[in-house]
């Protein structure tokens, strides 16, 4: 598994490239399927008919106004959550660190619920509020683990996160009791979904996604150095404390943005880096690259399933990812030994 870099770097690069190609092809294929299939009566035949020039207004509308935005948003959410998961795992050096498990998503969702109860309704306000909530959630949970020295106790972080999410869930329940008028909207915020999102939502979060992306590019190298240990990183001229805080900031931006559009979507941040690491090996830079296609691939697949299993209704995406993600979590801990990050 842990091939030494010197010995086989060429072989790695080659198979990496193959893998990337395969994943990108799969992503394109899934995106196309996402345009073809839905909960409605417009199926692949009608959609393909559009290409050959048929004038099916209903199909045109559903593909371009409903499925295409949804697919794009799914890609954005998948990238954001996947990268956030990989970053969080690298920072905490804990393969179980995941925005959902650590309560970062819960923090974002709770902040939005609170804002709704306090009377905010403007869609634009939601994004910064969610990001702030995600940041607070991140800092809360990571400060528990005190960032340093948790390498030997991955579960402490997860426990802290579970306790934190549970707490926020109860507080949301209290708000439901306190303010029945916001109840509908809050109930919607505690289960993630891609249904009914508009492209405007995506444009609104795009700047923060880009900022976070730039941040990730900036800290990818230092993070990789950090994986060698605190001293090694300092010796290479990096500042471990600063890198960690930057990474946490990126995670908050990414998770906040994803939660602001789609609500809390559990386990994506766990499953995506898990798969990416299995392909890319332990190097965080390569893992981050592979998160880019793997994240959307998983989110879109889950979303397509969520559309068709209970048609003409839809299953909330957050429920589906939890159902599929939890077994992966268990598989990770059942593995002979946890990969050390």
């Amino acid at each position: 598994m842990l091939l030494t870099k010197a010995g086989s770097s060429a072989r790695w690069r080659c198979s990496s490239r193959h893998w990337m190609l395969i994943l990108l092809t799969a992503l394109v294929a899934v995106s196309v399927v996402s345009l073809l299939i839905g909960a409605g009566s417009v199926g692949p035949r009608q959609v393909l008919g559009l290409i050959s020039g048929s004038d099916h207004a209903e199909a045109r509308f559903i593909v371009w106004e409903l499925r295409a935005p949804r697919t794009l948003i799914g890609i954005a959410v998948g990238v954001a959550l996947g990268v956030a998961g990989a970053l969080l795992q690298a920072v905490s050096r804990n393969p179980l660190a995941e925005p959902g498990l650590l309560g970062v998503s819960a923090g974002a969702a709770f902040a939005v619920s609170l804002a709704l109860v306090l009377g905010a309704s403007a869609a634009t306000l939601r994004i910064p509020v969610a990001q702030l909530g995600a940041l607070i959630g991140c800092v809360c949970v990571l400060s528990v683990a005190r960032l340093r020295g948790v390498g030997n106790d991955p579960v402490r972080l997860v426990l802290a996160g579970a306790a934190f999410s549970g707490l926020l869930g109860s507080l949301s329940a209290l708000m439901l009791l306190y303010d029945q008028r916001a109840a509908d909207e809050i109930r919607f915020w505690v289960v993630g979904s891609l249904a009914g999102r508009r492209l405007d939502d995506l444009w609104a979060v795009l700047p923060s996604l880009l900022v976070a992306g730039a941040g990730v590019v900036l800290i990818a190298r230092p993070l990789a150095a950090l994986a060698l240990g605190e001293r090694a990183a300092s010796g290479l001229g990096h500042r471990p404390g600063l890198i960690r805080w930057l990474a946490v900031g990126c995670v908050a931006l990414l998770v906040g943005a994803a939660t602001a559009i789609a609500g809390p979507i559990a386990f994506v941040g766990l499953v995506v880096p898990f798969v990416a690491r299995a392909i890319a090996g332990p190097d965080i830079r390569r893992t981050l690259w592979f998160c880019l296609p793997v994240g959307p691939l998983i989110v879109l697949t889950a979303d397509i399933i969520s559309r068709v299993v209970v048609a003409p209704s839809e299953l909330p995406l957050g429920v589906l990812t939890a159902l599929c993600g939890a077994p992966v979590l268990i598989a990770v801990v059942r593995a002979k030994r946890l990969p050390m990050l």
Partner: protein
Amino acid sequence: MKNTAKQSLSGVALPHTSTAYHEEASAQAVAAPQGYWRAALPRYGVSVLLEKRALVVNIGLSAALLAACVLYLSLGSVTLSPNAVVASLVGRGDSMTTFMVQQLRLPRLIAACFTGAAFALAGVLMQTLARNRLATPGIIGIDNGATAFAVASIVGLGVGIAPPAMALAGATTAAVLTFGLASGSGTQGYRFIVAGIGVGAVFGAVTQLMLARVAIDTANAAYPWTVGSLNARPASAVQLLGIGLALGLVAALALARSLTLLRFKDAIASGLGTAVKVGRLQVLLLSVVLTALAVAVAGPVGLVALIGPEIARSLSSARHVPILAATLAGALVMVLADLAGRTLFAPIEIPVGVVTAVVGGPWLLWILMRPQRSRP
């Protein structure tokens, strides 16, 4: 080393008849170790070492619990004087107060005491087992399993079994699943807990799915099972819990020694003569059963499993696992929380699960932020 371990049994009293101490016990002049009182019955050759601090803490908690109970029976939509409460308890008040105390407040008080005690006891067991102060049966999915089954029963998938029975079944199912999935790694360490978190997440998702897909009235009927409430709970489940709690408490006190040792690393515990694996399994089983019975009464009020033991630990010495103190503290917390939920926003009742979350939340954050002590 072995002897020290024996002394530091938790709780008030444990008959002490080991051969090593037998002769000493019969000798009058033997002094108790520092911080202990020795109560000896020389005629029977039995002596008991009572840790002073534990004794004081347990008596203090009992007194506080008693005071809270009186307060609980007095306050409400109609405030009664303690005299009136006592009068109606012995059946000498007027019919309205008697009904209010005997039929409304007393059964609920008993349910609160029992569930609080059971949750906290289960919590302190689980925390000792996991060597982590944040581990609760709720976090490893037992609460979620119970809720999912109870909700299933309410939304009409339960083949006609009452929600408390289904909650019991759900808690057991979740525990069995967690056991099964973590098998191979045993009940040891984090794998077990993380498997439990995964199981809990699945059940949580299933619950949300069911609630999202039923009529709003049915969702309302299921509401107490999703947050935890003590309003008009079925008496049969409370009785079952009472029996379970009594047996569980005895069993926990009997397991006290191996519990104290479980806090050490496995190698040390084995070296001290504990069958680590067996001990673990017993403790875990006890914790699961207690939680299941309590959830069947009150729904998921999991934070009590965190708050109760935490209070007990902060009061007791770090020498041993404060089993009795945690149990008492849990009951106290539950009684006070439900009292607050009943009276603060009257006539609207706040479910007890929400109260414990709101009160326990900041506390939890404080625990999380504070640098951790070396042992749970």
